[in-house]
């Protein structure tokens, strides 16, 4: 009896390791409930099972790299173009996301052959209408965040945050490393507090009067306004307004959630199918209504909460290639650290 139990245990241990099926393995750094719902829709439609390993982007990337060509990963899905670009730079991705459906759906600056954007988000400025005048904001740019008039009035996350890294990487791409280093020093001098908390905490700091302007992604305000975070945060969200910077030049910094095709993917064809599925109008609508991101494809409108409160009519930066975020990540970390950005 004992022997049977032991062999059964051992068999169980190995069974989990070697299972072959019609499936696609996703290393997933986006943990929205809405995503899980989309994956089950995909399974219902195609019969392809979606296996998930959730985690933070860094740890997932390391596992893919350590496993090398033997990796079970097919797709790596994360919420930052910089991370997809960095994975590409390390040679862990392969080309193949080039089907007509993908090319037709996604603008060229938002994809490479190895990874594509699946939903857009803008990193914008939030301000307190009580304490910030229209004149002060007029013509405001990311570059303007270093202007001494914001001294003691700005909140932004830590330099280790991936969205900040990509924002700074895009500035390096547009203005050069030297100018961006000076800019980072100006930003640090303007901070109302040592960086702490997530994007939503920055918005709430403006609502609470700790600061006058904050830098955060678009969907956070919509999330707060939706009431999903409770009545207090809904009230707080009404005390801040959104401002889209750089409207008079290249446009507002855009980032994407991206899906990347891993080198050695055992289920490559299924992976491509899943990406195509995520880019269909119904999937895109599901994203916009639940995660409050901007749609990747034309013909789908963002959630009414986003449209009514943030405005839809803004100029997106379609010029800066998102692939540059990955390339300039290291330089971005370097200038922020050198400026004493915690």
């Amino acid at each position: 009896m004992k022997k049977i139990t032991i062999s059964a245990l051992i068999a169980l241990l190995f069974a989990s390791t070697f299972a072959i099926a019609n499936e696609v393995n996703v290393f997933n750094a986006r943990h929205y409930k809405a995503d899980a719902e989309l994956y089950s829709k995909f399974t219902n439609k195609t019969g392809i099972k979606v296996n998930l390993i959730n985690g933070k982007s860094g740890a997932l990337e390391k596992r893919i790299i350590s496993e090398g060509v033997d990796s079970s990963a097919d797709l790596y899905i994360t919420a930052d173009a910089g991370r997809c670009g960095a994975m590409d730079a390390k040679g862990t991705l392969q080309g193949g996301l080039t089907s007509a459906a993908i090319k037709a759906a996604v603008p060229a600056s938002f994809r490479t052959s190895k990874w594509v954007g699946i939903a857009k988000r803008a990193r914008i400025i939030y301000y307190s209408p009580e304490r910030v005048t229209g004149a002060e904001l007029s013509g405001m740019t990311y570059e303007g965040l270093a202007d001494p008039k914001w001294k003691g009035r700005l909140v932004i996350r830590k330099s280790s945050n991936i969205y900040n890294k990509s924002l700074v990487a895009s500035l390096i791409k547009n203005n050069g490393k030297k100018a961006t280093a000076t800019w980072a020093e100006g930003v640090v001098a303007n901070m109302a507090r040592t960086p702490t908390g997530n994007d939503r905490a920055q918005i709430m700091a403006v609502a609470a009067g700790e600061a006058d302007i904050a830098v955060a992604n678009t969907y956070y305000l919509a999330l707060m306004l939706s009431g999903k975070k409770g009545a207090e945060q809904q009230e707080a969200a009404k005390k801040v307004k959104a401002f889209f910077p750089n409207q008079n030049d290249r446009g507002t910094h855009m980032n994407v959630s991206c899906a990347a095709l891993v080198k050695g993917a055992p289920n490559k064809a299924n992976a491509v199918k899943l990406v195509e599925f995520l880019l269909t109008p119904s999937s895109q609508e599901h994203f916009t209504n639940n995660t409050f991101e901007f749609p990747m494809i034309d013909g789908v409108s963002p959630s009414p909460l986003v449209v009514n409160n943030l405005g839809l009519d803004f100029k997106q930066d379609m010029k800066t290639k998102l692939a540059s975020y990955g390339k300039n990540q290291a330089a971005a970390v370097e200038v922020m650290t050198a400026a004493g950005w915690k």
Partner: protein
Amino acid sequence: MPGIYTNVKLGTLLFHVYKADYNMKLNSWYLSSFLISFVVLIPIITVFTSFFENTSNYYEILKNTFLIEYILNSITLLVSVLILTFIFGIGTAYLVSFYKFPGSNFFKWALILSFAVPPYIYAYSLTAFFENYGTAFTILKNLFGDANYNKDIPKFDGMLGAILSISFSLFAYVYILARASFLYQSQNLIDLGKNLGFSKIKSFYKIILPAARPAIVAGLSLVAMETLAEFGAVDFFSINTLTTGIYNSWIYFDDLAFANRISFLLLLFIFSLFILENLSRRKAKYHLNSKGGFKQKEKIKLFGVQAFLAFMFCFIIFFISFLFPLSQMLYWTIKFPENLLDLDIVNLLLNTVYLVTISSFVLLLFSLISNYGNRVSKNKILNFLSTLSISGYAIPGVILAIAFITFIAWFDNSIIKALGLTSIKKIFIGSIFGLVLVYFIRFYSLAFNGIKSGYEKINISVDESAYLLGYSKRKTFTNIHIPFLRNSLIFIIILISLEIIRELPITLILRPFNFETFATTAYISASEDLLEAAAVPSLFLILIASIFIIMTSKYILREKNE
């Protein structure tokens, strides 16, 4: 990678030592002890030998500034946590061991419930309550009407948040050990103080505290080890300590050599504490065994203001360490009930049970084998090997996981592939097998020491009598030792379960597809700024851990020497 060559060299060396000892017979005890020590030593050796590898130059300057920050932060965190856990742990232990006051019997075991709240869940609660427009804001608004209270609510984030989260979660180590030591202090000592005309406070400083010193040092070194190894809470508050520094330099700088170099520094810290703890424990044992002139002491009954103050001190600590995080998580679960429905609780529970069962089984099996091996062969090398293999507990989980992946990747790329065999990576990385293996390395000392102390209570003459009766070694083991060890075994299983339920970094890095535990679910939601969704798994984790703690309390808190 030179690390591995050293591994091989060490193996050969041990083999020679083994051959030189001609008294030994090659038997399964040796093989298993060797195997266990070897497996447990892999991560340590990988870390230590990488210290001399070159790191990439690119970040050299940045790293130097980082390194100082990591060390300073680790020291600030360590010192503050030690001071707080000392005050909380000793204060409560002193009150419940020497005095009777309303609730003293309740607090005696209720205070250890704080173990059920891991530092990262404590961190979520602190943030949830004190953040702008958080729970404190809601309470004030409901009490006093609309106003901007945010400015008046203190913010517990960053370093302060991390210090509080860790202190309230870990003070019970000091409490348990100090209390055990206080209980065994003879009434004679207290009388001595009285005869010398000492006040209560003076007796406490001059007699009680010094006599309990070894136990207190042991408790504090456990706290220190856990603090230095802390990952979840420190990561949540984005504090750069040596441990998160290792993780970040590995992940963001792709610099394993540098990660290993920081690990080396950290391990030096931790090993000094490990040795300190072991030495103190030995002394503590010596104190406990002094039976001559032991007089069971009477607890002093407190009245009036004194009783009230004693009650308040214990209550406040109990409230802040356990009731506060529990209520915050409960409040959120009720406020956002949709998260309760979204969570596949049955599945998470089954996963937890699955991990706990396999890990406990493997850990107990090997601990029994090596303990029994030590007992029947009484060999020094075997003893030495066992001592080495319990060091896994001192290594932070995140380092263990990284070192494990590094080793497997290296082993597979340079040995398995060279031999033309199929890759073994999938057997070890992202599998339950690999996960359990690393749990094994981490928690082996817990199981080994537990069984060892159980064995120490079985006199060797028991074995000899059994042999005289014609019992084989195996029969002695199964029919005599196991029944004797039953209580120790139950206790160890509960401790292992408690550790695995709360474990975060190893599970996070090594778990297979579609496999979550309460801890990973809570962490993932929290890292996506969905603290409300983290509340449900956190709440379940606290409840399950509390049940296990209540089950153990009779072992931890026994008042009479068995």
